[in-house]
């Protein structure tokens, strides 16, 4: 699974999806056969507020090239307020990563409802394209996790 010099760069993308909206949205994208690149791997969490910034940093440390967090639209959280906290936490984290010089295109939050399979697919396509254009995450990866 290593990337040779001549091979096309394929990013590693971790997508955290809340169980109630975004994961269901991803399921809908699947059952509607709305394709997005295989580079995206989804981790199911109960709510966007379950996502600890440490998970995102961990992903980057372990070699992820981009991390996206998807949750219910503000106001539609299954747990009423979870995504509001997630929104503040991620704003802070992303701002800090940007501040220390990490390309801000590598992080994203998107609100995707259970009915938005098309949005899920479009979001992932767009995000993968963005991260691909940024290339390999060299600024945050741990040397020991190199390919």
């Amino acid at each position, binding site marked *: 699974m290593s990337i040779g010099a001549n091979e096309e760069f394929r990013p590693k993308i971790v997508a955290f999806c809340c169980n109630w909206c975004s994961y269901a949205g991803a399921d809908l994208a699947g059952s509607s056969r709305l394709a997005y690149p295989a580079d995206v791997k989804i981790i199911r969490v109960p709510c966007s507020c379950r996502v600890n*910034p440490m998970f995102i940093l961990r992903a980057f440390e372990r070699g992820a090239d981009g991390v996206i967090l998807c949750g219910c639209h503000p106001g539609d959280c299954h747990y009423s307020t979870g995504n*509001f906290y997630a929104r*503040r936490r991620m*704003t802070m984290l992303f701002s800090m990563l940007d501040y220390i010089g990490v390309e801000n295109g590598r*992080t*994203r939050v998107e609100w995707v409802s259970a009915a938005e399979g098309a949005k899920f697919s479009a979001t992932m396509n767009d995000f993968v394209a963005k991260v691909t254009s940024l290339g390999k995450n060299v600024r945050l990866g741990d040397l020991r996790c190199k390919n």
Partner: protein
Amino acid sequence: MQELINKAKELLANGTVVRVLGWRAGDLSYNPEPAFFETEEDLQKFVYDGFCGANLSKYMIEASKLDGKTLVFLKPCDTYSFNQLIKEHRVDREKAYIVGVGCRGKLDIDKIKEQGIKGIESVEGTELDGPDTLTIKTLYGDKTCSYASAMLGRCHVCKGKEHMIADEIIGESKDTKDAERFDAVKAVEAMSPEERFNFFQKELRKCIRCNACRNVCPACSCRKCVFDSNKFDSAQKANVDSFEEKMFHVIRAFHVAGRCTDCGECSRVCPQGIQLHLFNRKFIKDINEYYGEFQAGADIEARGPLTNYTFDDVEPSIVKERG
């Protein structure tokens, strides 16, 4: 200083407190240490001068577990930390008798050494009501420097001379602010991403992972720090460049975001002189801009910005839009 000692003696004598938390004179003229005093005799070594920069709030966590009240001397900036610790139930207000002490800015011996002054035998003029110029006797001759030029970086952006909490106040404080609090952060923000990355790499590469910043921090008062526990598989004491450079300080800053009072102790104690406040102050600046002005420790009742929300909060994409 004598007034502080008299107050301590009085409160010990009348049984209001059973111990005093203050600073004990060091064996050099610039190294007083945080210390507890239990008797009048102990207090002979009590000192309060320009080098008493240590924030004593955090020591009150342990003192709160002891029987009886502790008299604690807090500078204006220390009182924010104490308030924050009350809010987080880490100190017991009832166990503290707080004497707010005056402050005219605290001194940094390294700031004196940076002026080329070596072999320091004594520093004079450090007391609260001392002169504007310090006289320094050294093995290589007598030197002078201005008080302000020897102040800790944090005092140049002082939050103010008001004590947020105190049972009584002894001594006058002076305004030492002569720079804008967020200028240093803004200067970094103004760099290109590449420059920012290189800047922080260089700064953080110095880290030796001694944990002094964490251990001195009143907000980092966890009984078991995530870096010492296996809860996140984050227990690493290795000084492996990549982790310190990229993760450790970001995680630490995030953990205290919204709780950090900007007391500046982390930057004061870093043996490698890393400008750790650049992280904490960045979060404070963002919080102020996105969620409204917030000063941790100013108001015990106020809800912390990261445990709060409004429906119309900015989206994380603001980071991108702002460029």
